[in-house]
Every structure is written in C-alpha cells, then in structure tokens.
C-alpha cells in the first residue's frame, strides 16, 4: 500500500516536473553554447523573452480551457488581429485608451461567445465552427481597417509592452504582470472552482457530465467566451507592441497557441491539461526562438526545431500515460 503510494507520488512528481524538465533543458543547452552564452544568460534577454511570450501566453490561457473541454479554437489568431484593429480604430475615433482597450477585449469575448453558441446550438464540431470564424474574423478585421494598417496616436496603451516600463519599479513590462496575474487566476479557476471541475468533466466524458446534471451547453459557451476575452486581451497587447492596428498580424499564431497547450500536456481528446504546463509550453517555444536567433540560425531551422519539439513532447506524454494505465 505504502509502496504503491510512494510510486504514485513519484508519478505525480514526474507529471508536475515533466514539462519543467523540457524548459530547463532548452535553457541549459543555450547556456552551454559558448557563442551565445553571455548574451543568452542576461536578465535583459530573459525580460525580452518574457515580453515576446505575452501575446501567445494570453491566447494560450483561454485555449487551455477549450482544449481541456475537448474542443479547439482555430479562430484565436484572427480574433487577436480583429481585437487589435478595434483598439486602434477606437483610439483613432477619439476614444480614451481605457475605453479602447475595453472595447478590444469585448470584441474578443463576443467572437468567443458566437463560437460557443454555434457549437452548442448547431451541434457542429468546434473545428468547423472556429475554422469558419477564422476566416470571418480576419475578413472583418481587414474590412474595418480598410485593408491597411490603422495608425493611432501614441497613448499609455502603447506602454503595456514596453521593455523598460515607465514607473521603473514595475521592473518588467506591465503586459508581463498582466500575464502572470491571469495565469495564476486561471490556475485557481481550473483547480478550485465548480466551473473548472466541470470543464475537465466535459472533456473527459461529456455524456457522463450531462448525466450528472451539469449544464454542458452553458458551460461550453462560457468556456469559449472566456477564451475569446483572452484573445481580446492578447489583441490589446498586439496593438500595444506594434502601435498600429494591423489586420494581417498574427497569421498562423493559433497553431503556436495550440502547440503551447499541447507541449504543456494538454490532450486534444480532452480531459487533460494545466495552466502551468501551458505556460511552460509557451516559454519553451519562446526560448527556442530566442536562442536560435542568437545562434544566427535562419528562420527555417527554428521552424524545423519547433516542429520536432511538438511531436517529441506529445510522444513523450503518450509514453508516460501508457505506462501508468
């Protein structure tokens, strides 16, 4: 009994540490390469990696919810672009930065709500609905922006992603703090709320969840709405970084977001995933990109490496699972 308990404890330890090992490995490898060592291991570099991670990370927080519930959202990147365009448009139209940001986030939430409603009422698979929304969102963004970038006057909204923040006691960009706060919040929601538990239940066995009296439709709509809100927030960060509203930004980013969740242990068949894992997945990809750039490797090498990492990470995850069943 105690031996079995010990084994499960080691098992859970492995489960918790698994993704960390990958992250530490990536950092360790670049730290050991003499050519990049001293540039890579700087606080400034870590700061910029973190800043570069904010946009994907915020999108991935919502995507984690969706993937745990057994769904997928292919419209995340289009949603981010649309929200960033909305923010720029609003500021240009004379709205204050706060109002514009609010509007941007709301736009994201609306897209998510529509996704969730279509999935539950039309009983379509999430892949199809969000594939459609991917095109719709991108199209609407280009339409609103008149098929070009929207320049907006500089406001404090552009400071969100600044590497050296204005009140210097913040140490890092406000966007990073926002990311950390929401990551902690979502981790708490998933673990300690009824909603969080129902998300896992739906992903694990939707029929059972319904049988146990869980309102699966409402819960799913809520999941997609929350995820949409995160995309909206991510769009605000995108605007802040670019200082313009660009409808062609973030093309293909939804796959980075999904990859981050999956590297972090999320299962596309639902029921599994964690915020901690997802965040580690985000950072693994960011550090890899950063390191590869420092090495002076061309972009295509980065793409190949990240592709390999995705497959290897998920394969390792599968092996781990097969062992403990």
């Amino acid at each position: 009994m105690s031996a079995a308990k010990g084994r499960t404890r080691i098992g859970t330890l492995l489960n918790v540490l698994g993704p960390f090992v990958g992250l530490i490995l990536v950092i360790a490898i670049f730290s050991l390469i003499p050519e990049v060592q001293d540039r890579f291991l700087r606080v400034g570099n870590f700061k910029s990696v973190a800043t570069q991670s904010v946009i994907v990370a915020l999108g991935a927080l919502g995507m984690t919810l969706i993937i745990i519930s057994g769904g997928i959202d292919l419209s995340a990147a289009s949603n981010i672009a649309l929200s960033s365009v909305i923010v720029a448009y609003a500021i240009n139209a004379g709205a204050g930065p706060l109002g514009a940001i609010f509007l941007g986030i709301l736009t994201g939430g609306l897209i998510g709500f529509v996704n969730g409603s279509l999935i539950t009422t039309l009983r379509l698979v999430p892949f199809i609905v969000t594939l459609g929304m991917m095109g719709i969102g991108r199209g609407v963004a280009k339409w609103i922006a008149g098929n070009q970038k929207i320049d907006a006057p500089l406001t404090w909204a552009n400071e969100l992603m600044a590497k050296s923040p204005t009140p210097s006691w913040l140490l890092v960009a406000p966007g990073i703090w926002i990311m950390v706060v929401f990551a902690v919040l979502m981790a708490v929601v998933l673990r300690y709320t009824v909603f969080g538990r129902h998300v896992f239940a739906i992903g694990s066995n939707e029929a059972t969840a319904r049988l146990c009296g869980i309102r699966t439709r409402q819960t799913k709509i809520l999941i997609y709405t929350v995820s949409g809100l995160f995309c909206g927030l991510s769009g605000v960060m995108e605007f802040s970084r670019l200082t313009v509203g660009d409808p062609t930004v973030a093309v293909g980013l939804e796959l980075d977001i999904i990859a981050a969740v999956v590297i972090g242990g999320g299962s596309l068949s639902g029921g599994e995933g964690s915020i901690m894992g997802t965040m580690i997945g985000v950072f693994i990809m960011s550090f890899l990109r950063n390191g590869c750039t420092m090495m002076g490797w061309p972009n295509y090498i980065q793409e190949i490496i990240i592709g390999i990492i995705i497959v290897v990470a998920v394969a390792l995850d599968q092996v781990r699972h097969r062992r403990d069943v």
Partner: protein
Amino acid sequence: MDALSKSFGATQALDQVSFFLEKGEVHALLGENGAGKSTMVKILSGAVKPDSGSMTIEGEAYSPAGPLDGRRRGISMIYQELNLAPHLTVEENIMLGQEIHSRGFLSLKSMKARVREALEIVHHPEISPDIPVRKLSVGAKQLVEIARALMNRAKILVMDEPTSSLSQEDSLRLFEIVRRLKTQGVSVIYISHFLEEVQKVADSFTVLRDGRNVGTGRMEETSLEELIQLMVGQKFTELFPRVEHVPGEVLLSLRNLRGRHMQAEASLDLRRGEILGIAGLIGAGRTEMLRSVFGLDSLEKGCIVISGTETSRPVPRWMIAHGAGMMSEDRQSEGLALARSIADNMTLSDFKPFLRCGLLRTNSQRKAAWDLVEKMKIKARTPTQKVFSLSGGNQQKVALARLLHQKADAFLLDEPTRGIDVISKAQIYEWIGELARQGKSVLFVSSYLPELLGVSDRIAVFHRGQIVAVKDASEWDAQSLMSAATVGRTLDA
C-alpha cells in the same frame, strides 16, 4: 409500476407488465435477451416513456419527463457501460454535478468528508479518493458509480449485469455491498443472467418473457429449474428450413487458442459442410473467440489450422486469403460502411476481379453487386444505393453477400439475425443451410436458442469465458442450453 406497455414500431416490447418493489429488497429481473428487461428499467429511469400504464414511488405518482426527473426521485442506474469521467479522480467523479461550493469556489474539505463517508460503504482496496478513475479495474469503477448513486441519495438502484465483467473476488465484494445497502433501506433491481448468483443475492424475482411478466415470487421458494422453465417457456417451434448436408473433413481447427481478450483457451474443430452453433450469454467470450480466430485480436497462445495451413499469428488479410470470412455482430459501426454504396460494401474485401491497369471498373463492380442483390433477395433499387437507406435485414444481407463475394469457405457469423425481421431471418437460415450443402463451414454465434437448435449440427456453449460443452444439436434442448449458459452445467431434471 402498473400495467406498463410499450411498443417500438410493430414490436411490442412490453405488454401490460406490472412490477412491485419493496423498500430495502433486492429484486431480480430475469429473462432472455430481448424479453423487455431493459425497456422496463428505461421506463423506470425516465429515459423512455411508456405508451400506457402508471408508476408510483412511495405512494406518490411518478411520471418522469426525462432521466433527470428519475434521478431527482432517487432512481440511479448502474449500467454496464460505465458512466465515469476517466481523467477525473474518484472523489471528483463521485461529487460530479453535486459539488459543494460557496460562490463557485469548491469546498474541498467538506467534499472530502462526504466522499470518505460514501467510500466507507463501498470499500475496495484499489479505491482512494485522489486516484484517477481510469487507473481502476472494472470492479472498482463500478463501486465508484455506486458511491455516486449513494451520494445522490438513491432510493432505487438499478444494476444491469453488474458482475458480467467482474472477477470472483469483486463479485463477492459487490454482493456484500448490496446486502449493506439493503439494511440502509435502499431497494435494488438486479438484472443478471447468472442464476446462481441471483439466488444468492436476491430476495424476490420477476421473470419477463416476450414483454410479459410470466412469474413473480420469493427467491427462496423457487428452484433454478423453475426459473429456467419460466425464462424459456413453451416456445412454439419456428420454421427452420433444413437443407440436407453432410459434414466432411475438418476445415478449420482452433488449438488451445487464447486471444488477447479471451479469458480461457478454446479448442474446436469445424468440418466442411457443418454448421457449428455457439451458445452463451452476451460477454461470455463468443465474440472474443471469433475476433481472435479472424486475427482482429492478437493471439497469446495456441494456433489456428485452416485448410491445412497452421498459423499462430492470424491477420484478417491472411485469413481471407485462406478462405475465412467474418461477419461482425455490430453492423452499424464495424460490419458495414453505412455511408457507402451497396456495391462498395459487398466488394470491399476483394476488388481484384474489377481491376484493369490498377483502375476500378465500376460497371463490372456494380454488375457483380447486383447479381448478389438478386441472389440474396435484397430489397434495393440500385447497386449504388447507400447502405444506410436499407432496412436492418437487408443491411445484414449485404454484409453476408460480401462473404460470398470473397468466396469464403469458412463463415464466422456473429449474431447474424440480431435485430432483423422474421422473413429475413428465415432467408438467412436457408442461406446458411445452403452453404453447408455446398461443403462450406459455418460458425454460427447466436443468443437466440430456438434458431441455434433449429439450424446447427453441433452446439458449443460458452460460460464465463470457457467452452463448457460441445454436443450434437439433437442432444440439446432449450433448457439444457440455457442452464449450461447461465450456470455452467446442465441441471439434472
């Protein structure tokens, strides 16, 4: 439950059935497959609405609008297909849908206490609150479901074949728990085919046959023989067209065969021109044996000899090449590609006759299919018609026609007449006889005893994974088959 009736289309599933359940009693619900047991409990749970009749629980009228209503009134079903979320822990599963919380935040401590309480009643060494359910054995999973039902303040627990996939030890544990539930005033409706275990655990019984209640009584006042007599009844002898045929040399042998999902070894010889019936309860290991023979499940032990060639690693392609053909019991998901045409379904196993330079000549494919449609008297308009638009009986004939197309010698048929109309059944019986006359061999798995007795030359009986007897069909009768399948031996009358 009073005078409940329910019909599905033309079939009367339940006919004026009345049923009384006392508080704190274990009531066994018995009957053959298709006797109406599951319809009855589905009505009770609220999943199905009766056409007529009424129900009362503790003196109050009960007419559920859906399963949730049933749950609210304290009725919990423990199905064979377990209703658990595999990734969640034991605790999370037990509390699912009834989490204790304040403003959406889980009260982990009070939930833990509640779960510990429930787990004290359903005790099992594997179960601890924090272990994910997917790591548990089937028996432990079942107990988790029972714990959830208790948490739901169940008054009536319906258990459908609870022990069919349990080990001996887990079964005993389950009986112990059922006894404990009784003392707490919970009533249990216990559906099982294993009569000896029913005798041990149940206080009273009701036997259904062809949708009618044919007997109710106290368990201790009855004998196994009487129960079997009630279940089998005086069946009118249906017309089984017999086609004369003579068994020849052995075509297919199983030697100490044990597949991945089989519980015991099996050895059988199948001759040319012979129809070998396989009897047994659902889940007794018949399907698993057919799957292992055909190479769908890998073998752990033993070998197969077909037309003089031996193999210990059969794969479907090889088996087909050596003259075997299998028809799955599940035509919806395994036997047929429902969204494809009749022609595609019939010829899927062998496209070679229609190939020219690697291209499929669809005209000759359709013509071959149409010949089979006419030969099998399938009601269809064109060979390109999609299979899902056909009736069950005609779908089944399409599946059988495929075996003819691939020119099989040994036919492995798993429940070929399940869920199809009487006329199609009779045609299939005739067709099986005709195959035997042509010197082909048929392994015929069925849960319907009259057809096994009417069609087969020999019958082998499975009981809990093992072949317990193989005898000539003339030496069997419905009662001896039923007792061999349910008790594992024939009772001396």
